[in-house]
């Protein structure tokens, strides 16, 4: 019993790392544009499916992974340019519906391009499973955790130690005043979509060898990433990181003890709980800066 709970926790850490990446995308876009992008999970799907199909066609795994991340980033750029930017005068509710529409559209695109069959992707490296206190982690899990370290480390360095990163924080803190100093809010909005999509895509790519890739995986990952972001307060990248791991562990332990069918339900339950306890998190800041 204890041994299996430990195993669930390890599994939770692995998916939690991916939730954290997707949550980081929610936070980035929310902070820079004031918008909750419900299409966030689909970037992971685009990444995973692109990598799996390219690798399936014979491309080396790492090359396929690289192209998949670029594909996700381009998708994010197009979402912003074609759907968000033209509607930036719309109200917050309209923009939320636009992102929900994007979510459905991208999933449809995934279905159209790749069909309903799951695609598999080889682990990035061979090697044997790692055993920690009797629990087992597949080699790919180390790639997943390494990805989190690199992504969150890079975000930290960017926001704390670069001039442009500081300007983004200024734009978040006071958009109109930042603009009077030449800080380009719309350019930052564009890049928040690109970077959020790239990070989401990367999450999909690194988890694909463990979960395999399906056209509808964005639904689960999007929901989980959103819950993780809300858990973390929606305004903080460290919060997204912690929220991802906390949610991953809760979901996997609950799913393991109850049944895997409960995983999404547990995620929803936690969302409702957080929204009841912290209702200002979502629509409290109705300002948009897309």
């Amino acid at each position, binding site marked *: 019993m204890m041994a299996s709970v430990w195993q669930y926790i390890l599994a939770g850490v692995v998916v939690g790392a991916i939730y954290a990446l997707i949550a980081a995308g929610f936070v980035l876009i929310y902070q820079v544009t004031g918008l909750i992008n419900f299409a966030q999970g689909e970037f992971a799907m685009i990444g995973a499916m692109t990598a799996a199909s390219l690798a399936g066609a014979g491309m080396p795994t790492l090359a396929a992974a690289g192209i998949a991340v670029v594909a996700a980033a381009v998708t994010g750029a197009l979402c912003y340019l074609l759907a968000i930017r033209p509607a930036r005068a719309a109200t917050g509710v309209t923009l939320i519906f636009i992102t929900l529409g994007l979510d459905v559209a991208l999933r449809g695109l995934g279905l159209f391009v790749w069909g309903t069959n799951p695609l598999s992707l080889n682990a990035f490296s061979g090697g044997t499973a790692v055993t920690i206190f009797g629990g087992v982690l597949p080699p790919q899990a180390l790639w997943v955790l390494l990805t989190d370290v690199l992504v969150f480390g890079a975000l930290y360095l960017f926001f704390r130690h670069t001039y442009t990163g500081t300007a983004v924080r200024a734009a978040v803190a006071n958009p109109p005043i930042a603009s*009077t100093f030449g800080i380009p809010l719309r350019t930052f909005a564009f890049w928040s979509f690109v970077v959020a999509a790239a990070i989401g895509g990367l999450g999909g790519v690194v988890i694909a060898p463990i979960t395999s890739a399906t056209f509808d995986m964005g639904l689960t990952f999007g929901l989980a990433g959103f819950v993780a972001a809300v858990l973390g307060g929606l305004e903080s990248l460290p919060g997204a990181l912690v929220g991802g791991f906390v949610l991953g562990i809760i979901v996997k332990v609950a799913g393991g003890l109850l049944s895997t069918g409960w995983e999404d339900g547990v995620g929803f339950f936690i969302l409702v709980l957080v929204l009841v306890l912290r209702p200002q998190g979502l629509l409290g800041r109705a300002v948009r800066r897309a």
Partner: protein
Amino acid sequence: MTETPVLEVEKISTVRGRVQVLWDVSLSVRRGETVAIVGPNGAGKTTLVGSITGLVPPRSGRIRVNGEDVTGMAPERLASRRVALVPERRGIFAPLSVRENLLMGAYARRAQRADLAADLDDVFGLFPALVRLRDALAGSLSGGEQQMVAIGRALMAKPELLLLDEPSLGLAPKVRAENFGALARLAERGVTILLVEQNLRLAARICGRAYLMQRGRIVGTATSEELAQSARHVYLESHGEAPHG
């Protein structure tokens, strides 16, 4: 031959929401001048500043900076014309450190690191109180210190035109005097300043002349001496009988 004014505002009308706030406002500021805009609450002073910086574009009329028509230009583009704002209620970037706030003032300049370091030293020279606070979060500072940050940040833009919207607001007299001392030194250095100020005595201290604003219109002009005089007058009024409309 007359020199082109740094700022020319020509008959602008500006609407906020559904209310027209500015009516045919015209003014100009020549290079090196320090000009005040005085007027009661709600006169439209902040809206006028907003129209100049592009935050609240006017519905009609023209705004020129150094002769270039900038009417309706987005704030981020106008920043590269070296117009810098010290906004009402300071508008500092609260979660950034003092140093980061100052550096952001220079964003439009795309300057080299070494230049920025020298300019930072300049600002710290003008506001020595900020030196030991350089790594503190700007949001944690006192109102007076935040005002220094807001002024220093605008100076980092190396402005051709410095706009200040009520920099004395909510500050203790001593801090206010210190900050206006710094503004006086800037004026001496030849920085062109347009200052919104309700405190006539403070305005008279650094400004050569003033525009009087009321209900969205420029209703008159005054010299520095006239400002100082009416400051005394207003003082007597508010300490004697109740002032009239």
